[in-house]
């Protein structure tokens, strides 16, 4: 599998996680189908009568208007009986009334007595008024503006999200910093996929204008704009009159002009390999390659997919004209197929035909091991490299794995090979232990990165009865630790960045996710008894940090007292003892720590490398001196120097105390070893 394919795999997996919804790590109470009770209040906080209450079952593609389940009484109270299925799938309860913006909460937010948090409706005085123009500044009439979902902060204030997005800068849509910010707020911003009374879509007039209202203030409304001859584009509109400058692309205030690039239609036929029969019901989607050659922009995928008709024909509209297109198929009893197509001149369609290979369609379900409730996310299938059937499926050799989303009820459908392989589940809620595979060391394919998954199930699929089988994959919430972050004075500190609170790596970066704590409290999820894990906390503004090593079997709250950053200084000399100037020195988390842990911690410490954790750097001065600042007290570091293209380790396992300035002394080349790790 080449790098582009690898990037694509991560991209689509990340895309599914974004599309499927939020990943709020939480421990769900076993509510059962008790009656739901709640209170609706107005913008002034007073009880509001006459608000309609319904359960939103809308999805990105299904917008059936639901029935009203209750209406708030004169005291603002309401009650209704949810179904067990609604509870299991954690549906969203929405309160709506004319003239105010809706409010909503998830069933998982019910307390033990069946009460939801109060639903506070908001002022609805900021309609979305947009205009669609092309790159020639001409209005685009008859474009469709679809409402994908609406999100809100529990605080009803989007300022923290907007501030963090400003930090991400005006970067491309697939910029990692931006993706990380979005992922963080996916967990914090409560979504609803449809609101009663708000149309699922509107159309632009001849002047390219459209208007949408009813969302209320401080809402982040996700829209897709698609239309004749223009690219399909997803965007977020903030229901504020103005948004600050410096936000990432396609995040707009309530009044905005959207400039749509021209689209390049892609048409073709999909046929079954071997028989040549038309393959109906196969989805064809498109990512595209930017001018720099990198895969870019996951969002147009939403608007850039089509399904083959009975003759196997498809037509993709809304793909932005680009240098190259990456086309993929999915669905039906077929393995995914991929084609790279170069652009042609102009805006006339290009043709991309596919031959898809039939596999075995299996079904399954992903559940929480403890509660046995469904868990949403994605499932990847990897064949075992020694599966004898692999040689008969050249298309699987090309993509190396198959991916399917896990639906709300935990079910998935996946096309696999006969014989042996692995089902790898990744939940949206990143609160489960990391996957392990016993006795398979050295046998897993390189592309099967254990740290990405919450569970892996080895399977052996019989050729004949595959479609009668149902696989159950359970994800283990493991042990949870809670704690509090305080400053040197013992006072609680909020706004701290933290790494290590979840077990699995981020799909986007293949490194432990970084979160920003809104309060001083934290929860570490997915610990296993035989595991040690560093929890790392830091706040650059306050110049405080601390790393603590916790064990999976420990109990009680974890108290983390931040300390001033530490530093390390030294002198680099050449073999003749002369100072070496201009060399870059870097402190990195010492992955060797796993070698020096007590033997009973068999699972070792998950790596903490990667871009989420600060890696202080310094350059040696004319006298060969360097000083590394902002080292995290309690964290083990290796110090490296870069000579040419080689990293040489200078010192190993330096652990510093808060505020300490460690003098590592004079270091000559012969005292450094080559072969650093990142």
């Amino acid at each position, binding site marked *: 599998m080449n790098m582009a394919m690898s990037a694509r795999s991560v991209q689509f997996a990340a895309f599914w996680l974004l599309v499927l919804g939020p990943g709020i790590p939480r421990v769900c109470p076993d509510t059962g189908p008790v009656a739901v009770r709640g209170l609706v209040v107005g913008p002034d906080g007073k009880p509001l009568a006459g608000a309609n209450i319904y359960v939103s079952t809308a999805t990105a593609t299904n917008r059936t208007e639901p029935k009203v389940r209750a209406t708030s009484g004169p005291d603002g109270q309401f009650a209704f009986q949810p179904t067990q299925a609604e509870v299991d799938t954690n549906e969203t309860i929405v309160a709506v009334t004319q003239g105010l913006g809706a409010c909503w909460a998830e069933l998982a937010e019910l307390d033990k007595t069946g009460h939801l948090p109060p639903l506070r409706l908001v002022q609805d005085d900021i309609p979305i008024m947009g205009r669609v123009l*092309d*790159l*020639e*500044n*001409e209005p685009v009439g008859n474009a469709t503006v679809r409402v994908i979902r609406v999100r809100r902060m529990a605080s009803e204030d989007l300022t923290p999200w907007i501030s963090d997005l400003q930090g991400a800068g*005006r*970067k*491309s*849509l*697939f910029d990692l910093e931006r993706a990380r910010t979005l992922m963080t707020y996916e967990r914090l911003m409560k979504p609803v996929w449809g609101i009663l009374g708000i149309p699922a879509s509107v159309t632009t007039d001849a002047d390219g204008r459209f208007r949408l209202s009813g969302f209320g203030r401080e809402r982040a409304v996700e829209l897709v704009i698609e239309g*004749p*001859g*223009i690219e399909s584009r997803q965007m977020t509109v903030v229901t504020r009159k103005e948004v600050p400058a410096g936000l*990432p*692309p*396609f995040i707009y205030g309530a009044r905005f*002009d959207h*400039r749509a*690039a*021209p*689209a390049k239609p892609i048409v073709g036929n999909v046929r079954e390999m071997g028989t040549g029969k038309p393959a109906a019901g196969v989805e064809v989607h498109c990512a595209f390659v*930017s*001018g*720099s050659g990198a895969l*870019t*922009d996951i969002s147009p995928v939403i608007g850039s997919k089509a399904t083959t008709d009975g003759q196997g024909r498809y037509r993709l509209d809304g793909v*932005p*004209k*680009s*240098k190259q297109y990456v086309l993929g198929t999915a669905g039906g009893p077929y393995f995914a197929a991929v084609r790279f197509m170069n*652009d042609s*001149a*102009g*805006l*006339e369609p290009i043709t991309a035909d596919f031959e898809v290979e039939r596999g075995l369609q299996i079904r399954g379900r992903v559940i929480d091991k403890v509660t046995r409730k469904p868990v949403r996310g994605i499932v990847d299938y990897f064949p075992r490299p020694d599966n004898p059937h692999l040689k008969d499926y050249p298309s699987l050799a090309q993509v190396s794995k198959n991916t399917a989303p896990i639906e709300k009820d935990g079910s998935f459908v996946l096309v696999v090979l006969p014989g042996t392989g692995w089902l790898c589940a990744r939940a949206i809620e990143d609160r489960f232990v990391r996957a392990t595979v016993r006795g398979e060391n050295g046998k897993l394919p390189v592309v099967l990165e254990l740290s990405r998954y919450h569970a892996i199930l080895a399977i052996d699929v019989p050729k004949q009865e595959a479609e009668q089988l149902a696989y159950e994959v359970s994800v283990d919430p493991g042990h949870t630790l809670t704690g509090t972050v305080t400053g040197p004075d013992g006072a609680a500190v909020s706004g701290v960045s933290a790494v290590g609170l979840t077990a699995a790596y981020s799909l986007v970066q293949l490194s432990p996710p970084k979160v920003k704590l809104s309060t001083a409290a934290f929860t570490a999820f997915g610990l296993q008894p035989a595991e040690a894990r560093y929890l790392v906390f830091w706040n650059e503004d306050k110049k405080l940090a601390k790393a603590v090593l916790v064990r999976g079997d420990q109990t009680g709250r974890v108290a983390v007292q931040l300390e001033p950053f530490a530093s390390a200084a030294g002198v680099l000399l050449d073999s003749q003892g002369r100072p070496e*100037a*201009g060399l870059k020195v870097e402190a990195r988390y010492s992955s060797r720590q796993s070698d020096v842990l007590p033997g009973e911690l068999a699972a070792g410490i998950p790596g903490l490398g990667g871009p989420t954790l600060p890696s202080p750097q310094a350059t040696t*001065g*004319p006298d060969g001196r360097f000083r590394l600042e902002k080292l995290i007290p309690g964290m083990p570091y290796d110090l490296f120097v870069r000579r040419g293209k080689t990293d040489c380790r200078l010192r190993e396992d330096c652990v510093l105390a808060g505020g300490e300035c460690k003098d590592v002394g004079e270091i000559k080349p012969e005292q450094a070893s080559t072969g650093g790790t990142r």
Partner: protein
Amino acid sequence: MKDRQPSNVPPCWSRYTPSAEMPWDVRRVVHLHRRATFAATWREVRRDLEEGPQASIDRLLAAKGGMHGEPDRFAQTADALADSAMGSGDPGRLKAWWVYRMLNSPDPLTERLTLLWHNHFATSNLKINDLAIMRRQNEIFRRHARGRFGTLLRAVVRDPAMLIWLDASVNRKGHPNENLARELMELFTLGISQYTEKDVKEAARSLTGWTMEQGAFREDPSQHDDGAKTILAQTGQWNAEDLVQLLLDHPATAQRLAWRICDLLMGEGTVRSAAVAALAEGLRARNLDIGWAVETVLRSQAFFAPANLGSRVLEPVAYVVGAARALELAKPAPSSMVLADWCGRLGQDLFYPPNVGGWPGGRSWISPHTMIGRANFAAALLETGLVRQARPVDVLALPKCYGRGEDVGAVLAFYSELLLGSVLDPTVQEQLLGSADSRKSATPQTLRRIVARLLASAEAQLG
């Protein structure tokens, strides 16, 4: 219009005065616009014909052009397009932005000069890989396009695009990297054989300490080699600023600058070395004032001399944008992204010059492959309009609008004048008209094919 003339014009750049031998005619109006802008509409041709050369050139210099007068809020729209290009991360949108500017700017001369500087300081996004940085460099070219060359040079060499492109950040005291120093001398100022290898090494030492931090220029004194250096036979503790001044003061820089301007505005083999030297001398006397040199050439007898007419191969951008502009394709306008894509297919990919030397230009633009490409472009332009929802161009609309005949011959004559500035040679005309049948049945499709053939003709590749 104010009748003005750049002061102290060298004799070989004496002012053009219409005469019986060199009348102010359609040919010369079209010539002026094909060289100095991206072609003229017929309305502009007629207006300039009526007002005379001085007023026409005054208008160009005063930035009062534009396809249909100044489009509403042109600058605001252009900025919004650039912002959206940055946001998308798609280089195609940045190219589209620039093509939009070329088509619609009220100052097409400056856009033409911006393209000149893009080629002179050729920097490719292939290495930079940052649209914001490429846009910023492009804005520098535009801002200083007609100003003092020293101001332009200083702005360009301190800008992140050039610092990244020529590896300035690895040019450190004790470890000089010669890339920026070499190109600064060879391509940006003196030209080849005007310096020695020793000069390059010493210049690289002068440039140490110029680096970047968080996407912005930074001078790092700790990385600067402040020892004595001898550059171009002058010794001192030169730093980067000193080096730039040494280069600006050198006569070869004025000579190269004069050559660069003549390379744009004068045809192949139409300017003598003495004329270039005279222009260079004038530039030196005026602190390398680019605007003065451009004005001097545009107002000159040499510029409008018969030898200079139709004697320069149009680069793809001028060919593509010029065609769309002259044909007044505005409602709906052709896709600027598609036009930019065509420029790339014909060999001039905006923001992606092939190397630090830029596009070779001249006859290198023409090959069997590119001629077929140009013919395909002409056909696509006429048959689809290059708009989002393909719409053939109504080639009768313009002759009708301007009161010209609508039969095949009249239509061809009109477009010949519009695109080439002259009626075609009868033999060429015969070839373009094709079979007798097509002349009789002048369907819209036949007319489009004839205009497409005209655009693809050898004559239409010269400007």
